[in-house]
């Protein structure tokens, strides 16, 4: 029984922290938040050089074949840096391809994806559908797909889209194929670019029908997102604690007042709880598949609530300055809130937890 990361995992964490701190200082994040594309080719090339684009791709397909724990480590650091990057959307699509791609799809895409030469993303939510992450009304017929998907992350920068459809299957659609129209949407979180994707009889190539493997991929995706939220919340908490030490009112640092210090203690409780669950879910995905669905939904439900509460609480500690555009805190709050609603919100995942526990 040991909750510590291995030496290799610690090295990945250290590298990620150093690299992201150097590459994504606050003014860079702010610039990218205001930019339509939201990342540069140079930044993407560097991620590929670190091997991150190949992280979840099996070695046989040209990747590193690392596990969910390593993905959790990197995602937590990306959240901490609030790095605007298509890394997550690309990893989500890659996980689905690895899980259920046909041989032809794998050999066509996994190599370029692993090397960072191609990017993929995932188109899940229907324009007029519900928001349950496992239901779509998009009908495929005769190898063609007609649908409008919303809130598709980083679609304009993707070469290939993995699209969820009504038959419970996922389809691979080329982003520049005829019948595919990608339009920028205004996103709550400006550090992650969202697009609507309108498909009009677009050529769609189904992934294999592998519900268990697809399920495992989704559990990995929500765990990775929960881990990202842990990093976001950790950073917001650090900002609040540091501000509470410096800011003086009535002649004392505001952190000396229990109304403020107890709020900060509550942040720690929630950040550490979210972290414990995300690490456990990562571990379960790699080593205890029977517990993975439960662990992933627990991690996502808890992080969804904690991420918003901690960033909102940090804003309260900052008082007026925290509500200004000039202060960085709002980017953290927006990321946490957007993450809370992606791939199943807290309520959806709690219902999963109840179901899995036989309630």
């Amino acid at each position, binding site marked *: *029984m040991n*909750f510590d990361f291995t030496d290799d995992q610690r090295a990945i964490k250290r590298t990620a922290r150093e690299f992201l701190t150097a590459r994504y200082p606050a003014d860079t994040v702010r610039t990218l938040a205001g930019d339509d594309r939201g990342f540069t080719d140079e930044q993407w090339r560097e991620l590929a050089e670190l091997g991150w684009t190949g992280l979840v791709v099996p070695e046989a397909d040209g990747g590193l074949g690392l596990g969910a724990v390593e993905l959790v480590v990197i995602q937590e650091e990306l959240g901490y840096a609030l790095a605007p990057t298509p890394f997550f959307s690309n990893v989500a699509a890659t996980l689905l391809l690895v899980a259920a791609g046909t041989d032809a799809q794998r050999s066509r895409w996994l190599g370029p994806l692993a090397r960072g030469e191609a990017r993929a993303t995932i188109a899940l939510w229907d324009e007029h559908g519900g928001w349950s992450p496992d239901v779509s009304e998009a009908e495929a017929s005769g190898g063609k797909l007609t649908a409008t998907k919303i809130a598709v992350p980083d679609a304009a920068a993707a070469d290939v889209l993995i699209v969820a459809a009504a038959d419970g299957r996922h389809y691979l659609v080329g982003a520049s194929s005829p019948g595919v129209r990608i339009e920028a949407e205004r996103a709550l979180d400006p550090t992650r670019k969202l697009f609507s994707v309108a498909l009009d009889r677009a050529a769609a190539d189904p992934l294999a029908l592998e519900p268990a493997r697809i399920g495992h991929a989704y559990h990995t995706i929500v765990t990775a997102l929960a881990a990202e939220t842990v990093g976001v919340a950790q950073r917001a908490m650090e900002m609040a*604690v540091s501000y509470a*030490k410096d800011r003086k009112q009535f002649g004392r640092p505001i952190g000396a007042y*229990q109304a403020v210090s107890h709020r900060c203690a509550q942040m720690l409780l929630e950040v550490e709880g979210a972290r414990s669950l995300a690490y456990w879910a990562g571990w*379960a995905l790699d*080593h205890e598949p029977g517990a993975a669905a439960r662990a992933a939904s*627990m991690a996502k439900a808890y992080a969804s609530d904690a991420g918003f509460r901690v960033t909102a609480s940090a804003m309260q500690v900052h008082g007026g300055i925290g509500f200004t555009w000039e202060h960085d805190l709002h980017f953290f709050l927006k990321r946490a809130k957007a993450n809370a609603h992606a791939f199943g919100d807290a309520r959806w995942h709690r219902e999963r937890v109840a179901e899995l526990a036989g309630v």
Partner: protein
Amino acid sequence: MDLTLSPNELAFRDELRAWLQANDPGREPAGDEAEFAFRREWQRSLHAGGWAGVSWPTEYGGRGATLIEQAIYNEEIVRAKAPQTANVLGLAMGGPTVIAHGTEEQRHRYLPPILSADEIWCQGFSEPDSGSDLASVNTRATRHGDEWVVTGQKVWTTFAQHAKWCMLVARTDADAPKHKGLSYFLMDMDQDAVQVRPLVQITGEAEFNELFIEEARIPHENIVGGEGNGWAVAITTLMHERATLAFGLQVRVQIALAELIEKARSTRASTAAHFASEDPVVRQRLAQLLIEAEVLRLNAYRGLTATMRDGVPGPEGSLGKWHWSDVNQSLTELAMEIAGPRAMLAEDEWTYRFLRARANSIEGGTTEILKNIVAERVLGLPRMR
């Protein structure tokens, strides 16, 4: 990262499980005296089997268990729904304090009868005017030759009615700063100068007592850790209280939660749903409790990993007791809600649990004090004083 038990740890667990199964003492009888006698027999049985004082070094009659084995022990004892031992405070707090701060003579004198339950221990820390501010205690000890004469009042002393020894924190130097003027005594309860009165709590039972001390005598050699060093020794006792509790508590929550889910499945709902377990709001709250219970378990293990690595629990270690009290209170509140109008009746175990849980955020360090500790020592925020 490896969240499985090693072969040695599994062997430890299996040996304990097998022993618990083979030595099931049956149900606890009702009534204070009968219950105490039953728990004393149970502890003697544990001791004979080598399962009393598992954390204690073998040279003092313990098992010398690793931290993980101690965690497993606390989990398994609760999982087996084994009774409490008669000498909970001696085993979990008094013994470890004497081992850490006592002289070799004190260790040989006091430790064996703790293990055998021949001498029961109680804890005389809190006073009517000294709750969270423990260092302000007023119970006064004055030296007369080789003896100290002690006068004062203590409160919340569990097991005082059965105890031979009281871990007593008293002021030995009224002129020293408040943390410096305290000493830690082992007071013989078997004297007329010490009067024990049961303290009836909101559940109607008397789990605790008040202690009235009027010129009680304590030999000088019964000071633990040296005169004037009582604060540091008391902190050791409190650390042991919090550290050993976490694993047992989280398993207790898991068991209560399983029972609550059963209750929800068999209780008619007030809404369109047939049973409470089909009501979406109840499902949400049960799921949240399942998640929080998992956090309790994981944080306890993370704290253990940090302790093994650094010698002290990590930040998550200071969160456990506070978080547990939140969770246990929510759990019992949900049970009342599920009960509907029957919640007005004191007809089952859940009424007791609901009322008893109100103390969870007060006993063993109030939630407010624990938040102060987290804010000041973990987050480094300025002290409020």
